[in-house]
């Protein structure tokens, strides 16, 4: 019976490690999607009602000497439906993901993709000059290149060896 207990303990420890791993990786990416009134129209209604209200918008934040690069996975958007702003070193990306499917009679078997309005806030590792920011949307990935502010560039003084 001792070994049974050990195995249960071990299995439980694995669950905890796995769960913590999952939470630390995904919980921030979990973003709420809300539906506008017009999406409750017939045809779209069936899908909109059954889609999840939470979707994963996975992000990646990279810092180099000159800029902060942010990549956000938001498949199925129109490039002009994004709204990007920086307030106090926080990047706010909001948008509206519309249902693109043809409005044809049918029955949904699986609905996992989220639709509607969303907002994702990401703290930035450095102060950026948002007037110089560049945005690009390609194959479902929004890439933002945010040059660091002059003050931030000056703040770091490289020390040479020797």
């Amino acid at each position, binding site marked *: 019976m001792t070994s049974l207990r050990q195995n249960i303990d071990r299995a439980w420890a694995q669950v905890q490690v796995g769960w913590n*791993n999952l939470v630390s990786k995904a919980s921030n990416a979990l973003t709420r999607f809300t539906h506008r009134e017009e999406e409750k129209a017939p045809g779209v209604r069936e899908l909109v009602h059954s889609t999840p209200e939470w979707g994963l918008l996975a992000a*990646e934040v990279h810092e180099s000497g000159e800029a902060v690069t942010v990549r956000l996975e*938001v*498949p199925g958007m129109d490039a002009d439906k994004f709204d990007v702003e920086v307030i106090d070193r926080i990047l706010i990306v909001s948008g509206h993901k519309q249902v693109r*499917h043809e409005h044809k009679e*049918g029955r*949904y*078997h*699986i609905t*996992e993709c989220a639709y509607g309005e969303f907002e994702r806030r990401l703290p930035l590792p450095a102060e950026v000059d948002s007037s110089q920011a560049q945005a690009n949307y390609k194959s479902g990935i929004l890439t933002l290149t945010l040059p660091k502010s002059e003050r931030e560039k000056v703040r770091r003084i490289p020390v040479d060896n020797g």
Partner: protein
Amino acid sequence: MTLMKNNPWSLLDEFNREFSRVLPGFADDESRVVGSNWAPAVDIKEEDDRFVIHADIPGVAAEDIDISMEKGVLTISGERKHEAEESKEGFHRIERSFGTFMRRFSLPENVDAEKISASSKEGVVELVLPKAVHDNQPKKITVNNG
């Protein structure tokens, strides 16, 4: 506890297997395959004359997506590579998954495998699976008297 009698660990094994299967995503259906790094989210719609599948696969070029059909099982698989050759250092946040992905679905027999088509736009792959031409006449089955 008859289950434990033959193999005391079967329950734990099963539990572990289930857990590792579920871990890459939140859903718990069979279509997410062990061995791949991540699984895309999908919508599956059935219309009168076809099935339409939408899969969210952002950041993967169309040529890196494989769609195959074998013995009534549709497989969507491929690999996501990182966009830029950035140094491993300097990352403050990595939530994205890279590497291989796979998702499998058993299709109903009335799908015409020869006519499946796929297109990709802004990270969403759309698959259209026409149903085989069916006669709309309901089949009547007569029960014979023995």
